[in-house]
C-alpha cells in the first residue's frame, strides 16, 4: 500500500524526515512521535503534497506527487484547525466531498451520512464558528470519511475530544478497520492510539526509530526508564519494599502517592503484585505517567545511535 525507500525531506537546511524506508501493507498503523518529530511531513510525503529531496515514495504502487488521482482513495484528517466561521459543517463537508468528483445529490447524501456517523447530525446546519473544538474535530473526520476512502490518515485526531468523544472516535475507527479499510493514526500520545491495536511506527527527529506490533513496542517500553505514580494504603512500607527488592531507582512520597522512578518497567510489572500481596498493601491507583513516550524516544534514539543495547529495534 505505501512504500518509502530511503526518503529524506529537507526544508532548506532543516531535516523534516531523515532516510526513512518502510513498506506498509493494508492495516491499522499508529504513527507515534513527539511534536515536531516529522509525522506531518511523512504524511505529506505519502499524500504527494511534498516531494522527497532524496528517495522515492509509492502509494498504491504509484508516485503520489505525479498522480493526484490517487487522492480519491485516501481520506485525510489533518491536525490543522478549520477556519470557515460562516459556513456550516454540512456546507463545508459537502463542498470537500464534491471535490472528489461527486455531483450535488451524491455530495449531499455522503456529507449527511458522514456527519451522522461522527455524531454531528444535529449541529450540521450551524455555522462552524459556533462549534466547539471537539465538534470541529468531528467535522474534520466527516470530510475525511465521506467519500469512503480505502486509506484513512488521521493526524492527531483525538485533540480536543472529551472522554466520551474519544470513545466514540475509537469505536468508529474500529468499525472502519473491521470493514477491511486501512488507517494511519499519527499522535504524540501512546494510549490514544493503543486502543486501536495498531502496528506502531515510532518516529523522532525525522527518523523511524522502531516499528512493530503492540507487544513488541510494549517490550521496548518495559525496558525503558520511566516514572510511575502509585497510590496505596501504606506508601512508606511500599517504598521500603520497592527499594529492598531493587525495583526502584528513585522514590518520592507525596501523601498517599509514591512517585517511583525505574530504569525498567518490567521489574515493577513483574514484581510488584507479589510484594503487595505478601505484605497486605492495597493499591488504590497506579499510573505509568503517560509521559512514557517522552522517556521512550530518547532511549530509542540512543539505541538507534548504538549508544545502548536496551530494547530491540526492528
Amino acid at each position: 500500500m505505501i512504500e518509502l525507500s530511503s526518503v529524506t525531506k529537507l526544508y532548506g537546511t532543516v531535516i523534516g524526515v531523515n532516510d526513512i524506508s518502510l513498506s506498509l501493507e493494508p492495516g491499522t498503523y499508529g504513527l507515534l512521535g513527539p511534536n515536531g518529530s516529522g509525522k506531518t511531513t511523512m504524511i505529506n510525503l505519502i499524500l504527494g503534497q511534498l516531494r522527497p529531496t532524496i528517495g522515492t515514495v509509492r502509494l498504491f504502487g504509484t508516485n503520489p506527487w505525479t498522480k493526484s488521482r490517487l487522492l480519491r482513495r485516501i481520506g485525510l484528517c489533518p491536525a490543522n484547525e478549520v477556519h470557515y466561521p460562516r459556513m456550516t459543517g454540512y456546507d463545508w463537508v459537502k463542498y470537500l466531498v464534491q471535490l472528489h468528483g461527486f455531483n450535488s445529490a451524491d455530495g449531499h447524501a455522503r456529507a449527511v451520512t458522514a456527519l451522522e456517523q461522527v455524531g454531528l447530525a444535529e449541529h450540521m446546519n450551524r455555522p462552524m464558528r459556533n462549534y466547539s473544538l471537539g465538534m470541529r474535530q468531528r467535522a474534520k473526520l466527516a470530510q475525511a470519511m465521506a467519500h469512503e476512502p480505502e486509506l484513512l490518515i488521521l493526524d492527531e485526531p483525538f485533540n480536543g475530544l472529551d472522554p466520551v468523544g474519544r470513545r466514540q472516535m475509537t469505536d468508529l475507527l474500529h468499525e472502519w478497520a473491521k470493514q477491511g479499510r486501512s488507517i494511519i493514526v499519527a499522535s504524540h500520545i501512546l494510549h490514544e492510539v493503543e486502543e486501536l491495536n495498531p502496528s506502531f511506527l515510532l518516529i523522532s527527529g525525522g527518523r523511524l526509530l522502531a516499528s512493530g506490533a503492540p507487544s513488541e513496542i510494549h517490550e521496548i517500553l518495559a525496558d525503558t526508564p520511566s516514572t510511575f505514580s502509585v497510590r496505596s494504603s501504606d506508601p512508606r512500607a511500599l517504598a521500603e519494599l520497592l527499594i529492598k527488592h531493587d525495583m526502584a531507582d528513585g522514590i518520592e512520597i507525596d501523601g498517599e502517592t509514591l512517585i517511583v522512578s525505574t530504569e525498567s518497567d518490567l521489574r515493577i510489572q513483574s514484581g510488584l503484585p507479589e510484594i503487595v500481596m505478601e505484605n497486605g498493601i492495597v493499591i488504590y491507583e497506579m499510573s505509568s505517567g503517560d509521559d512514557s513516550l517522552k522517556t521512550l524516544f530518547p532511549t530509542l534514539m540512543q539505541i538507534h545511535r548504538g549508544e545502548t543495547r536496551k530494547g530491540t529495534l526492528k
Partner: protein
Amino acid sequence: MNWIQGSFRTCSFELRRSLTNQRIAVSAVMVLFPSVILGLVHAAPGVQGEMPVEVSQMLILLLVGLVTILSLLLWATPNVHSELEGKSWVFIASRPGGRVSNFLGKYFASVYSSFIVSWAAVTLSVLVVNQVAEVRDPLKLWSVLSIIFLIACVVYGAIFSMIGTIFYRRGMVIGVAYVLVSDVLVANLPAIIGKLTVRYHLQSLGIAWMGWLFPGGEEAVRNYNTYFGKPEPWFNLTCLFVMMALCLGVGTFVIVSRQYITKDES
C-alpha cells in the same frame, strides 16, 4: 475532468464564504468611490458645468480602473496565501485536482465579484456624469465601458492569480508593483514593449469602439495613432485572450508543481 467541476464548486463555495458584512461594506465603498469623486469634482467651485465631457470620461476610466484593480488585488492574489494562512490548504490540496480547482475556482470568483463592483461603479459614474455634463451617447458609453471592464477583470484577474501562485507570500505587493511598472510606466512608452501591456489593448479597444475617450480633440487622436498605431479590435482581443490563457496556464503549472509549505511545517 474533476478539476473543471471542482473549479465551479470552489467558485460557488468561495462566493458564499466571502459574503461577509465586511466584504459587502468594502465592495459598497468601492462601488460608490468613483461616482462620489466625480460628483465632488463637478461640484467644485470653478468647475461647475465647465468640465469637458472627455475629462469626465477619462476620470471614469481612471477611478473605476483603480477600483477594479484594487478589487482584483484583494480577491485574486491571495488565492494560495489565504488557504495557507487559514490552514485550509491541506484540505483542498488532498483532493484529486484540488490545487487546480482552487486556482481556477478562486480566479472565477475574483472575476465575478470584481466585475460586479466595477460594473456597478461604471453604471453609477455614467449616471452622475450624464447628470452634470452632456454625454453624447450615455448608453453606448455605459455599454462599452462595461465590456472593457469585463475584459479587464478577466485578464487582470488571470495575471494576479498567477502572481498569487508564484509569489504567494507577497502577492499583493508584487501585483501593485506589476500595475505600476506595466500599466503606468511601460504602457505609456510608444514602443513595441508597450503593446505587451493590458492597458494598451484595453485603451485601443475603447478608442476603436467609442471613437475617442480622452481630452485633446482631433490632434490628440492623430498623435496617439502616430505613436501607438491603430490596431483592429480583433488583434487587441486576441492579444488579451493570449495573455489570459498564458497566465492561467503558468499559474496552473506552478500550483501543481510547487510544494506549498505551511508555517507549521517551515
